[in-house]
C-alpha cells in the first residue's frame, strides 16, 4: 500500500493542504485515478506559483530555513560525481557542521580550435551542513560551525590552490557557533584568517548561498569571485530575530526586521553584494531537489567557464575589486 508522504507545510502554504489531501485520498483508491491526480497536481502547481511569487521577506526566511530544504550534501551528491569527503582540521577535531572534499563536476565545456570538448572538472567543495531532522541537526549542530570547521575549510581551500582546482562553497548556516569552546579556540581568529586567505586565493572561487547566510559564519567561507544565491535564500549580518530583539527591543518584530534589513536575494543583487540569483523550482527548492541541483549546476558551469579565462593574478585582482568596492558613504 502506498504511504502518505511526510510533508512539511509552512503557514502560507496551507491553502495547498486541501489539494494534497485529495490527491492522497485518490492514491489510496483501487481504481486508476491518474487523470484526476494530474489535474489536481496542475492546480497545486498554479497555486504554488502564485504563493511563491508573492512571498514577504519573513516568509522567504521560513523557506530558507525549511527543514526539508536540500542541504549542502544533498546538493553535492546531485551535482557532482565521485565526491570524497575530507575530515578534520589536523589541529583539534572534525566539525560535522562543516563538510568538504574533492569531487568531479561533469559536463564542463571548453572551446578549442576543433570545436568544443566536454570534460569533468575537478573541484574542491566546502559548505555548512544542516540536518534534515532533529537528530541530524544535533549531530550537525544546526549547521553552526566551530573554529575547527573554519580551519578545515581553510585547509581544503589551500589544497585546492596547490592543485589548481576551482573552489565551490555552499553557504547554509544560522551563523558561526557562539559558545565557550568556540571562543577558547578562537572563532574570531578562524573566520578572520579565512577572510584574509580567501582574498588571496589564486584559483576560481564561487560561493553559493543555498539557505541561510548567517553573518560572519556565512562570510567565513563566502568570499568567492562570484557569489550566487538561490531565489529563496537569505544573507544577513544578523538574523531577523536578533535584529528585532537588539534594535527594536522586541523579538516579535522579526518580520519587520526582515523587511528593513534587506536580506533577500533580490535586495542583495540590487546592492551588488551578489552576482546572480539562481531560480528555484515551483514551490521552492524543497519541492524538487533534482531541478534545484540542475539549476545550481548550470550556474556553476557558466561562472567557472567565465573565470577560467583569468590568470591567477587576475583572479586575485578580480576578487579584490569586488570587495574593495563594497560600501556606501559620502565624502565632502
Amino acid at each position: 500500500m502506498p504511504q502518505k508522504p511526510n510533508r512539511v507545510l509552512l503557514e502560507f502554504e496551507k491553502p495547498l493542504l486541501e489539494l494534497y489531501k485529495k490527491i492522497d485520498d485518490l492514491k489510496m483508491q483501487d481504481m486508476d485515478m491518474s487523470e484526476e491526480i494530474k489535474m489536481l497536481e496542475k492546480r497545486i502547481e498554479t497555486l504554488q506559483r502564485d504563493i511563491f511569487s508573492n512571498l514577504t521577506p519573513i516568509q522567504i526566511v521560513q523557506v530558507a530555513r525549511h527543514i526539508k530544504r536540500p542541504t549542502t550534501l544533498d546538493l553535492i551528491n546531485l551535482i557532482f560525481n565521485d565526491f570524497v569527503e575530507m575530515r578534520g582540521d589536523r589541529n583539534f577535531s572534525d566539525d560535522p557542521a562543516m563538510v568538504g572534499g574533492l569531487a568531479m563536476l561533469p559536463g564542463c565545456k571548453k572551446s578549442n580550435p576543433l570545436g568544443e570538448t566536454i570534460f569533468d572538472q575537478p573541484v574542491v567543495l566546502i559548505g555548512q551542513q544542516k540536518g534534515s531532522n532533529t537528530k541530524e541537526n544535533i549531530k550537525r549542530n544546526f549547521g553552526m560551525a566551530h573554529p575547527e570547521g573554519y580551519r578545515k575549510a581553510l585547509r581544503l581551500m589551500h589544497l585546492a590552490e596547490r592543485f589548481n582546482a576551482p573552489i565551490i562553497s555552499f553557504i547554509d548556516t544560522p551563523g558561526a557557533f557562539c559558545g565557550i569552546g568556540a571562543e577558547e579556540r578562537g572563532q574570531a581568529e578562524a573566520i578572520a584568517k579565512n577572510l584574509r586567505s580567501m582574498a588571496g586565493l589564486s584559483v576560481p572561487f564561487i560561493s553559493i548561498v543555498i539557505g541561510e547566510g548567517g553573518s560572519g559564519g556565512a562570510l567565513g567561507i563566502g568570499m568567492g569571485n562570484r557569489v550566487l544565491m538561490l531565489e529563496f535564500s537569505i544573507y544577513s549580518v544578523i538574523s531577523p530575530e536578533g535584529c528585532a530583539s537588539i534594535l527594536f527591543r522586541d523579538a516579535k518584530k522579526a518580520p519587520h526586521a526582515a523587511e528593513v534589513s534587506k536580506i533577500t536575494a533580490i535586495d542583495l543583487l540590487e546592492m551588488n553584494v551578489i552576482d546572480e540569483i539562481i531560480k528555484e523550482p515551483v514551490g521552492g527548492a524543497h519541492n524538487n531537489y533534482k531541478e534545484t541541483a540542475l539549476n545550481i549546476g548550470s550556474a556553476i558551469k557558466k561562472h567557472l567557464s567565465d573565470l577560467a579565462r583569468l590568470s591567477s593574478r587576475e583572479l586575485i585582482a578580480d576578487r579584490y575589486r569586488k570587495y574593495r568596492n563594497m560600501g556606501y558613504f559620502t565624502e565632502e
Partner: protein
Amino acid sequence: MAKLALHQWFQKRKLEKEAGPASERLDIPGNLWIKCTKCQVAIFAKDLDANLKVCPKCGYHFKLSARERIEATIDPETFTEISPFLHSKDFLGFVDSAPYSQRILKSEEKTGLADAIVIGEGELHGIEVGIGVMDFSFMGGSMGSVVGEKVTRIAEICLDKKIPLIIFSSSGGARMQEGIMSLMQMAKTSAALSRLRSAAIPYLSIMTDPTTGGTTASFAMLGDLNIAEPGALIGFAGPRVIEQTIRQKLPPGFQRAEFLEKHGMVDIVSERGKMKEELKKVLHFFENAAKT
C-alpha cells in the same frame, strides 16, 4: 555644539598650547572627580588624565577617545589625518528607535568625529607609521561602510609607502543599520590586509575594551602581532549572547585579554603606560629585519 574634525581639533590644540598654559585643560570643565568603574575609588580627573586614564589605585583602563589615543601613541605634532570627510550614508533608510541618519548626526555632534575611526600618518618614536584608531563613543565603535573604507585606505597607503600599519580597535561589531554592507566590510578590510601580508608590511593590531563581533572576526585578529590592553573584553560573540545560547553562566575572566593570551590569541597584554614602548620595540625589529 560645534562640529570639529580631528585635524581641526589638533590645530586648535596647537594654538591653545601656543597661547599658554591657561587654556591647556580646556576639555575638562572645572575640577571633576571620576569614580573608578572597577574599584569605585574617586579620582581627580586631572590625575586620571595624567595617568592615561588608568586608575592609579586598581589599574582599570578607562576607554580612550580616538584623539586621546593618538596623543598617547603618536609623537607630538607629527600626526596628519587622512580622509577626515568620509561620512556614513543611510542608504537603507533604516529606522529603529531613531532614524540612522539622525543617529549619525548625533554621534558626530557628540564626539566631534566623522565616524567610529580616525586614520592618519604620523611618527612613533621617529618611525613613520600609518595608524587607525577606533572610537567606541561613536555608535559603539560599530563597523559600517566608513570604518571599512578607512581601514582599507590606510592599509593601501601603508602598502604604497611601505610603512607599518597600527590599528587600535574598540568596537561592538558590525553596524546593523547598514545591513549586509556592514558584513561586507569584514571581507573588504581583510582583503586589504592580505595585500599587506603578501608585501611583508608589518601590521600591529591592538585590541582595547571592548573588541567584539565583526571587528574581531576581521582586521582586529589579523595582526602580525596581536596586542591587547589588560582586562579588555575581546571575543567573537558578546558574553550575553553566549549565555543565552548555552544557558549557563560564563566563568570569571572569560573573553578578557588575559584569557585570550592564555588561549594563544594575543601575543602581548600591555598596560597602557607601556604600550608605546612596546610598539617601538616591535617596530624597531621590523625596521631592521626589513633592511637586512
